[in-house]
C-alpha cells in the first residue's frame, strides 16, 4: 500500500521508500520508517495532499506520496 492510495481520515505507518532522493527529503521533514501518518485532506483539485506526521501538517504531491510504502 502506498501513501497516495489512502483516503482522507485513513492512517498508516511508513515502511520504506521507493526513491532514494525523495526519501532523503521526506526523512528530513520527519517522514521516517516507523512513523505513523494520517491523511487529512486533498487539495480542492485532488492534488496535492495534506498529511499529519510527527505532530505537524505536511503537504506533498500524490506523485511524491506514491514513493512512500506503508506497512
Amino acid at each position: 500500500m502506498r501513501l497516495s492510495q489512502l483516503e482522507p481520515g485513513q492512517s498508516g505507518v511508513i515502511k520504506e521508500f521507493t526513491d532514494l532522493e525523495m526519501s532523503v527529503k521526506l526523512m528530513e521533514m520527519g517522514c521516517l520508517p516507523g512513523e505513523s501518518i494520517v491523511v487529512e485532506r486533498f487539495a480542492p483539485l485532488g492534488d496535492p495532499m495534506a498529511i499529519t506526521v510527527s505532530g505537524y501538517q505536511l503537504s506533498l504531491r500524490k506523485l511524491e506520496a506514491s514513493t512512500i510504502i506503508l506497512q
Partner: protein
Amino acid sequence: MNSDLKVALVGNPNSGKSTLFNVLTGLNQKIGNFPGVTVDKKTGFSKLSDSTIAQIIDLPGTYSIYPKSHDERIVLNTLADKNNSGYPDLIVFVADATNLKRNLLLYTQVADLKIPIIIALNMMDMAKRAGIEISVDKLAEKLGVQVVPISARKLEGIDQLKQAITFAGKIPLQADAIEIESIAPGLVEKIGSEMQLDNAYMALQFAHHHEHFHFITEHHSDRIEEIEQEFSFHSQKAQATETIARYNFINEVLSDSVKVKIDGKQETISNRIDKVLTHKVFGFLIFFAILFLIFQSIFAWSQYPQSLIEELFIWVAKLGHLYLPTGVLTDLLIDGVLAGLSGVLIFIPQIAILFAFISILEDTGYMSRVTFMMDKIMSKVGLSGKSVIPMIGGFACAVPSIMSARTIESWKDRIITIMVTPLIACSARLPVYALLISLVVPDKRVLGVLNLQGLTLMALYVLSIVSAIIVAWVMKKIIRSRERGYFIMELPVYRMPRWNNVGLTMFQKVKAFVFEAGKVIIAVSVVLWVLASYGPPQKFREIDQKFTYNANKQYSHAQVDRLKASAKLENSFAGILGKSIEPAIKPLGFDWKIGIALITSFAAREVFVGTMATIYSVDSDDTNLGSVRDKMQSARNPKTGLPVFTTAAAFSLMIFYAFAMQCMSTLAVVYRETQHWKWPAIQFVYMTALAYFASLLVYQLLK
C-alpha cells in the same frame, strides 16, 4: 556600531526565527543581499547588556543543512567558511517546541560543525497548550548545551536569552549526536587530514558540497572528487544513513525529556479552519475574494496618495522654475532628476499596500494554503501556487509584484513568474487603452447589455492572462534547472499576524525599492528627458526664432508655447529616433509620431497620452482625453491624406502596448531581483519581439 560578538540565528522555517530577530534588533537592522543571490540578508545589532552589543545575522530558514534551494545553501556556506564575513562566534538555534523532533535534526547537524551554540526553545506557550511537556534541564543535559525557553511573540524569556548569549563560552561543548566517521569510513579521515580540517562533520560536508564551496580551490575540489571515487562515496546514500542515525539520537534524547499528554486525535483549531479555507467550493471563493480585495486596494487605495505625491512634485517643480535661475542646470534638476524621483516615489503606495497584504497572508499561514490549492493548475505551466499573488498584483503594477515573487522558493518558478508578470495588463496601460478604444471602437451596445468598448477592454485583460500563461509554459520547457521540482511543504498552524512585522515589511520593501531600483529609474528618466528636450542646436535655434517672431499673431501665448513644444519634440533626439525607426514600424501601421511616443513611453506606459498631447500640440493641462482624441482622430498622413489612426492601426498599437516591455521601472526591479542584467535583457527582447510580430499580424489582417 562596534560589536564584540557575532551571532547567527539558525532554525527551521516557521520556527519564529524572524520574530526573534525583530525582537532582538528592533528597528536596528538592515537588509542586504547575500553575494550573488537574491536572498534577503538581514543583519542587525542587539544590545545584550550595558557593555555588550552583538551583531545578529538572520540566516534563511531551512529544514536541513543539505540545501534544496539557493536560500538554504547560504546556511551551510556561511557556517562552513571560517573566513567569510558572516561566520559567527555563536549560533542561536531557534527551535519550535511544538515540533521538536523535526527541529532537532537541523540542530544536530549544525551542532556537529562545532561552533559554540545555544538553543532558544521558542513557542513554549503553544507547546504547553498542545499538552507537550518539555523538561528543559534534561534536554540541556542530554545535548550538552544551554537551552533557554522563550516565546518570541509574547516577549517571554528574551532577557534570559540575551544573558545566555552574553555569557556563552567560546568553546563548543555540545554532545556528539552521531559518529560521523562511520557514515563514510576512511573518506572522512582522509579529507580531514588532506584539507587540514579539525572537524569530521565538516570533512563530510566537503565531500557532499565541495562544488558549491567557493572558498576552496579547484585543485582541492578535484582532489576531493578523487578521494570520493577511491572510497566509492554515494552522496544520497550517505545522507540517508546520516539522517536515520540522527533521528535515532533525537528519539533517545526526546524519550527522556518530552512527554505528550493529550492524544493526537483531538482536532486542532487549525484543522477546523482548513476545512473551510481549503474547501472545494468555499476555498476558492474565499481565495478569489481575497485576491479581489488585494487587487481593489492596490488600485483604489493607492490612487489618493499617488495623486498627492504627483501634486507635491508638480508644486515643487513650479516653485523651482519660479525661484531658480533659468538655465540648463535648473531644467536638468527639475525636469530630469525631479521628474525621475517622482517616477520612483509614485510606486510607494502600491508597494506598501501589496506587501502589507502579502505579509499578513504569510504571517497567518494562509499563503501556504494558497500554494496548496493552486499547485495543480500552476505547476502545469511551470509556475508555483505562490505565483498567483504576483500575477494578480500585476494587474495593478508589475513593480511590487515582481518584488513579491521572492516568496517563491524554487528558483525556476520564481524566474518564470518574474518573466511573465509584466505581460499582465497593468494599470499604466489603462489610459493608453482607454484613449485608443475611445478612438476606434464605437460606444455601442451588443446583445442589449454589453458595451462594445467595455468588451474590448476586457478582451485585452483576458489576452494578458492567456499570453502570460503561454509564455510561462514555453519558458518551463526552455529554462533548465538542476533543482528537482519538489512540493514537500509544511502547512504551518494558523496564527494572528504580527502587526509590527507587517509594518516593518512594508517599510523595508519600500526602502529597498527606492534605494536600489530607484537609482536606475532616475538615471534612465534623465536620459529620456535629454532625448526628448534636446536636439541638434541649429534646428532648435531656428524653432526658437520662428516662434518668437511675431509671425504668429493670430495665436495666443499659450498656443504659441504649445506649437513650439510640439516643434521641439519633433526635432529632438527622441523625434529623430522616432523618425529613424519609422521604416521598421510602418508595417505595424505606425508613423514617426507614434514612434516618438513608443520611445518616451519607456519612462512609463501612460506617458503615451502626454506625448500624444504634446505632438499634436494639445494643452497638456487639459485633463479630459477628448481634445487629444479629437486631434488624433483628425490626424492625416501627409502623403496619402488618409487617417493615421485607422481601426487597424489603433488595434495594432493596443496589441503593441499589451506585449511590449516599455517600463524602465520594471526592468530596474527585475535587475534588482535577479542580480543579473541577463534577465531584464531577455525580458526586454522577448517582449518587444512578441509585441512587434503580434502587432504586425494584427495590422496586416485588419488593414
